[in-house]
């Protein structure tokens, strides 16, 4: 079942060269799809096109099952600095007009799920970069998204925080049966998280290779240390490199 479909989509920013496309992507329900590519290849643009934050210059973005409820996680935590963690998480619920009590309960539950139950009343500036990103993920989860779009969410974090967040994201995505489109430039991150990877060419970004991965059921923290993971990462890396050289 297709949740979102990009059909021969192109994007040209005013006064610039073509940034993206032509690009065809079909996002299937329940998959964890990574868009993997070098900086500036337009993968963030692709995500914004899916979200409807940008309009395509050519081609179309469609939702065969009707427009899903979209959650978006940005590269920065993008929290409101004047609001406590719980109020930040509650924001989408507030905007949808959900009653304050129910909103608080759901926001708090989401914070507990990302491991920040004790920090509900902290202001963002009192939290570390990793914790802020957790709040940002909790905000996306609290709204029960049918399609979760993540734009290099862990790029600014240190290695340890990043791995911990990868583990937790995988667990949360599995628990909720989330459909995720995840933009990254990290081979290891995409190999660890995805069920499917689209390797993208440099600007203007197109899909150069598709890599399907085995079901992530076995993936745990320990899986990163197995030869199987190393082999998977190597395969992804090879595909990406081939994509680069084809484009060149």
């Amino acid at each position, binding site marked *: 079942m297709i949740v979102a479909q990009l059909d021969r989509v192109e994007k040209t920013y005013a006064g610039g060269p073509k940034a993206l496309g032509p690009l065809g992507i079909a996002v299937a329900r329940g998959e964890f799809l990574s868009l993997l590519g070098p900086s500036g290849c337009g993968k963030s643009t692709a995500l914004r096109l899916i979200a409807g934050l940008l309009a395509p210059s050519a081609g179309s973005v469609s939702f065969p099952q009707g427009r899903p409820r979209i959650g978006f996680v940005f590269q920065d935590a993008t929290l409101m*600095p004047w609001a406590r963690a719980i109020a930040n998480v509650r924001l989408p619920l507030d905007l949808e007009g959900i009653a304050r009590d129910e909103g608080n309960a759901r926001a708090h539950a989401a914070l507990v799920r990302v491991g920040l139950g004790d920090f509900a009343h902290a202001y963002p500036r009192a939290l570390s970069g990793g914790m802020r990103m957790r709040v940002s993920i909790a905000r996306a989860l609290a709204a029960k998204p049918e399609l979760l779009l993540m734009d290099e969410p862990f790029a600014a974090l240190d290695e340890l925080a990043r791995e911990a967040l990868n583990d937790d994201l995988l667990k949360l995505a599995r628990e909720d049966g989330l459909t995720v489109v995840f933009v990254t430039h990290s081979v290891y991150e995409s190999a660890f998280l995805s069920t499917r990877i689209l390797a993208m060419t440099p600007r203007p970004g197109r899909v150069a290779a598709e890599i399907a991965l085995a079901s992530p059921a076995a993936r745990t923290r320990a899986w990163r240390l197995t030869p199987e993971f190393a082999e998977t990462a190597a395969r992804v890396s090879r595909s990406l490199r081939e994509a680069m050289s084809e484009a060149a």
Partner: protein
Amino acid sequence: MTRGLRLALPFALGVAALITWEWLVTYYAVPRYVLPKPTEIAEALAADFPSLLASLWTTLRITLAAFALAVGGGVALAVLFSQSRLVELALSPYAVALQVTPVVAIAPLIVIWVGYERIDLALLILAWIVAFFPILSNTTVGLRSADHNLIDLFGLHGASRWQVLWRLRLPSALPYLLSGMKVSGGLALIGTVVAEFVAGTGTATGLAWRIVEAGNRLQIAKMFAALLLLAVLGIAIYFALGLLEYLALRRWHESAVRKEN
């Protein structure tokens, strides 16, 4: 630097300057109608205290009213600008024109139009004109400075214009507004005083008029006393607004958060 030193240093400097002043005036026998001694100024302040205090109150009242109207009007117009680019394009040149025309030059006109029998209203309008612009320009920038990704997020979750304004743009603008208020508070006082000077005649009863009056009578010590009160008032306004800024922002804005080591 310790807190104690921060208070002690300016205080010690002030005391030293006053003592030197007193001594120089005594030593060179400077006439009191040129430069009175600090002790004479203190005497003048004590002697005329009730009437000076009444004048202070008049000046303060007009200053505060002008300031409040400047904040209200400035924020309202900035919000209007943020909602309609067309309104901003049409009005902002006039707002700038109002700002760059020296208030002293407009004052006689306003006084004539409003009339001497309602001189307080004329002073209020003049002080408002001076105090209004920093609020307008700061708030306009602040409303525009909201995080673009947050604006997108609000849009994704179906936020109305009103929700974006109330929940995102206004809080983002708050640090800018508060900083504009610190400038505007001082300008409201300056505007009031300048307007009082221009209005001249005895219908105005603020501190500026006391200075003119004392000057005409060569009561220089009284001039200094009124000047002292004006300075104290200006400092009080500045620090009150600084305190307000700190209280409003201390939990979340970098400018007000004390650095933790």
